[in-house]
């Protein structure tokens, strides 16, 4: 076993005096129950969701208000973000993308495959962004300060997630090569460093931008982000407003225009680019040295930036805001043809230079650094520790796995990392009262343990309506999970039985092919019949069809009802035949024979003869079997009614026999 990388964080469950009492706990699929082992006092439960990372457990239900009490059970959940209302959009939309990705897996190969994966990655990001916008709206419209800050935290988490994902997309999914790599990184910085956007908007919308106090800041921002056209546009404004600086502006404008940049489209080789770059660099150097910009410190510093002067760039620290912006700017003006594998050196030194020992690296910095170092596993690990949900790592890992970047890595527990993370995420979904449906597809795509997880989780879904039960059943039936199908049907049958809905209960047990339960319900029907003298739920019993064969008792119920129908339709001889068959073929339970024989009475008393001599003998034998089977003691206990019934039957049978002998004798004789 490996040692844990970091000391597990301590989680204090509020309301528990852990110094004085022992805690006991029980693992659940996605949550844990904790309680104190000494009982005393009373206390209610309240819900108070705090937040922490997936690595740390977090508590959910607290003790009663105010004083601590020990009769509470605490629910400690692993994945808290699943319960954030606004994030449900993220879970649902990304579920669709995830399923699409798994389906497309076999179809694509080669180049189109890579393009497809990049597209998938972009789709994931746009979902994050959409969610972020919603969350931002919610934060803006929230009146409650606590709610507002909660939303704002979510926005910043989502924004960090998108930032990391985008970088991973560039480095791992698209695996951009030298040249295009820089362009992608520039896009990345432009997209995510948006603190300066307000300033830009303010300056551009002012009446006279070049007179605005932040004018040069905006020009700097454009230059630092490599947005040359926009910078030149502003410069032209300065030139027209300030004729004195016209020449300087022209020169700077010309330098900016001529700056060679790597392109995505044409087939320019890297050497060509480097040559052009060298040439342009020298030109900038010349202008700086001959003091062209000496009279304007702003333009001079810009020229220094163009030359890649690290100190000049670092002076604009306020505008850069982050070390990774500094890194990209530095690459743009010093190493435009940086290769992916060289990134790690520049990244490390940029971070050191930028932070300058003033502040230590935050989790986000560590994650980004790991990405620049191409340590994919480190990225995923750090994200798991830092982020408050499994969504991000599960989806990112799955995508990277589809890029065939994680093959070699096997965990010492479970299957592989992809499956482990997906299982964790899906388990979190299953613990949610409504999102459980999404979890199913994630389990489906975990080849090793997915099915077992699904089997364990699906049985624990509360079934409050039949419609929900049908949905759960459908999931189980599609996956041939017979055991679970049986169990769900049994639960539903049991519920129906408790509600005295015998018809429904029978339907459910027929669906589960549960013979024992069908027998139980059939007995209830027969008992009801004996008590009330009529059948309930005729519409069901009359339409049993082939499902009648599920259990002997059910067959009897169906056949017995058929007898009643035939009798009602005055098809006496058919009815008689069926009645006799029920006893002679031992379909009827012995306890019911007396009722059947009593049912034969009116048939025996009919004007026309229904039972043949042979049938009458059979009936007599049945009656004798029944009475002989009983011990003397039982006979004594039988009340007078019973004795009278037997006597009446014997009389009726004898009379019928007499009539039938006469009739059959006459018929044969004639």
């Amino acid at each position, binding site marked *: 076993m490996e040692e844990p990388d970091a000391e597990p964080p301590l989680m204090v469950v509020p309301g528990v005096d852990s110094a004085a009492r022992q805690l006991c706990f029980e693992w659940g699929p996605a949550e844990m129950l904790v309680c104190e082992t000494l009982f005393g006092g009373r206390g209610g439960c309240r819900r108070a969701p705090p937040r922490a990372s997936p690595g740390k457990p977090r508590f959910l239900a607290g003790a009663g208000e105010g004083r601590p009490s020990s009769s509470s059970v605490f629910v400690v959940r692993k994945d808290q973000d699943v319960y954030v209302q606004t994030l*449900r959009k993220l879970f649902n939309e990304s579920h669709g993308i995830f399923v699409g990705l798994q389906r497309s897996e076999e179809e694509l190969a080669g180049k189109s495959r890579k393009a497809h994966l990049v597209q998938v990655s972009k789709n994931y990001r746009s979902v994050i962004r959409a969610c972020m916008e919603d969350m931002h709206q919610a934060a803006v419209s929230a009146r409650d300060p606590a709610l507002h800050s909660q939303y704002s935290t979510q926005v910043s988490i989502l924004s960090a997630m998108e930032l990391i994902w985008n970088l991973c997309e560039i480095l791992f999914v698209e695996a951009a090569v030298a040249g295009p790599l820089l362009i992608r990184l520039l896009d990345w910085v432009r997209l995510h460093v948006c603190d300066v956007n307000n300033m830009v908007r303010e300056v551009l919308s002012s009446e006279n931008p070049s007179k605005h106090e932040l004018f040069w800041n905006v020009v700097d921002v454009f230059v630092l982000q490599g947005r040359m056209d926009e910078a030149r546009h502003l410069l032209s404004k300065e030139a027209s407003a300030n004729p004195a600086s016209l020449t300087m502006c022209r020169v700077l404008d010309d330098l900016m225009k001529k700056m060679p940049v790597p392109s995505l489209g044409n087939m320019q080789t890297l050497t060509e680019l480097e040559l052009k770059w060298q040439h342009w660099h020298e030109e900038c150097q010349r202008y700086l040295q001959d003091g062209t910009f000496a009279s304007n410190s702003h333009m001079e510093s810009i020229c220094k930036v163009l030359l890649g002067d690290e100190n000049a760039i670092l002076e604009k620290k306020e505008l850069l805001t982050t070390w990774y912006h500094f890194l990209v700017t530095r690459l743009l003006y010093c190493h435009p043809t940086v290769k992916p594998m060289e990134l790690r050196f520049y990244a490390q030194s940029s971070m050191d230079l930028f932070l300058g020992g003033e502040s230590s690296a935050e989790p986000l910095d560590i994650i980004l650094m790991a990405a620049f170092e191409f340590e994919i596993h480190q990225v995923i690990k750090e994200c798991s520790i830092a982020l408050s949900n499994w969504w991000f790592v599960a989806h990112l890992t799955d995508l990277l796995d589809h890029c065939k970047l994680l093959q070699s890595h096997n965990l010492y527990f479970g299957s592989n990392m992809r499956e482990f993370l997906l299982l964790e995420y899906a388990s979190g979904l299953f613990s949610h009262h409504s999102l459980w449906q999404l979890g199913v597809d994630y389990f489906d795509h975990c080849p090793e343990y997915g099915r077992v997880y699904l089997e364990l989780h699906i049985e624990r879904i509360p079934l409050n309506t*039949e419609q929900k039960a049908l949905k759960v059943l459908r999931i189980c039936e599609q996956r041939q999970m017979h055991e679970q199908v049986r169990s769900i049907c049994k639960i539903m049958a049991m519920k129906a039985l408790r509600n005295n809905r015998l*018809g429904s209960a029978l339907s459910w047990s027929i669906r589960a092919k549960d013979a024992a339960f069908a027998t139980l319900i059939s007995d209830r029907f027969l008992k009801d019949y004996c008590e009330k003298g009529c059948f309930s739920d005729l519409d069901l019993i009359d339409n049993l069809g082939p499902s009648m064969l599920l259990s002997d008792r059910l067959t009897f119920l169906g056949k017995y009802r058929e007898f009643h129908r035939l009798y009602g339709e005055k098809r006496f001889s058919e009815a008689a035949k069926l009645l006799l068959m029920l006893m002679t073929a031992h379909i009827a339970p012995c306890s019911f024979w007396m009722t059947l024989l009593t049912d034969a009475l009116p048939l025996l008393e009919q004007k026309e003869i229904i039972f043949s001599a042979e049938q009458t003998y059979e009936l007599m034998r049945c009656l004798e079997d029944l009475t002989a089977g009983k011990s003397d003691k039982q006979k004594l206990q039988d009340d007078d009614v019973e004795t009278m019934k037997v006597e009446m039957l014997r009389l009726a049978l004898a009379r019928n026999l007499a009539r039938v002998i006469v009739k059959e004798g006459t018929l044969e004789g004639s």
Partner: protein
Amino acid sequence: MEDVCAKFVSQKVSKARWRPPPAAALRPPDCFATGSWDNEDNRISIWSVGDLGSVGLNGEYQGEPQLLCDIRHNGDVMDMQFLDQERIVVASSTGDVTIFRHHQNNQTLSANQRWEKAHYHVDRGAACGGAACTGVICNNPEIVTVGEDGRINFFRADQKDAVRTIDNADSSTLHAVTFLRTTEILTVNSIGQLKIWDLRQQRNEPSQIFSLTGDRVPLHCVDRHPNQQHIVATGGQDGVLSIWDIRQGTMPVSLLNAHEAEMWEVHFHPSNPDHLFTCSEDGSLWHWDTSTSVSEKPSFLHQGGKSSTFFAHNTINQSVVSAWLSNDPTKDRMEITNLIPNQTLSVNSLDVLGPCLVYGTDAEAIYVNRHLFA
């Protein structure tokens, strides 16, 4: 599919219904209601797709549905019907039936009237004695509800107590109900039976029972042809669409293999009944079109232009309708399109009105298509 706009609503949608437009208006509907299920906190929501959104360059509506108002609902929303322009009747899994009123002047919803535990199991008084009310149908002011308790309730919107209740109307669960005529209703149940109840009779027995043969596949939804009242469509657990002619026989006229899982809803297009829509647990939504057979028939009304085509459909309606009852696939072709190619989770509900389609899914999204026949 670019005509479809989607909105994720952070709750699983169990029902979606267009608000009926005013009788005189010819405009397409601009407002619909949705209900959610399986949430700790279920809601009834009213959405607008009309006036509030922006209009695109070519005059087409671009925006997604906008939430006008919503209100908490106790229990899963099992079924929902507009009683009139302002009132919605909602069936709950708790057995309650509630009328909500939508106040259009200040965009609020309020509970107008409630029949608590209209459907219940043995003990109505018990805390959890309610039985899910699975279906509701209105014909203002009359309301009929059915439930898991096999009970049929008749209400009037203005009366506090049920007008009539048929206890034990069905021994199994009743899944859906619809009006056949003003005095007759149709119910479908979980053992594959279709029953007609004549409200004029005081006997608590169905006047006719139709049933699927063989496996007694549960039926989940039912709809009646808007013009030809003897034609009825039902959808079952196996995803099969059954067409019944209730004038004759006790078995369906045709069984059409359709979805791979439960068919949750079936709807004839109210004004264009040779079109039919079905949605299913397997995540698909099908458009059944029998109007193609029309074009093969000689018709001097076909002179180009959409309006005349539409007119043509109406005039020879009689022959179109027989397309639903025809058993001969070569004579009357039926065109079937799946409107959702890549869906995974269940489409629980749909509604069609004029050129507009709305549907809601378990993936917590609602979709609106405003150019159905474009």
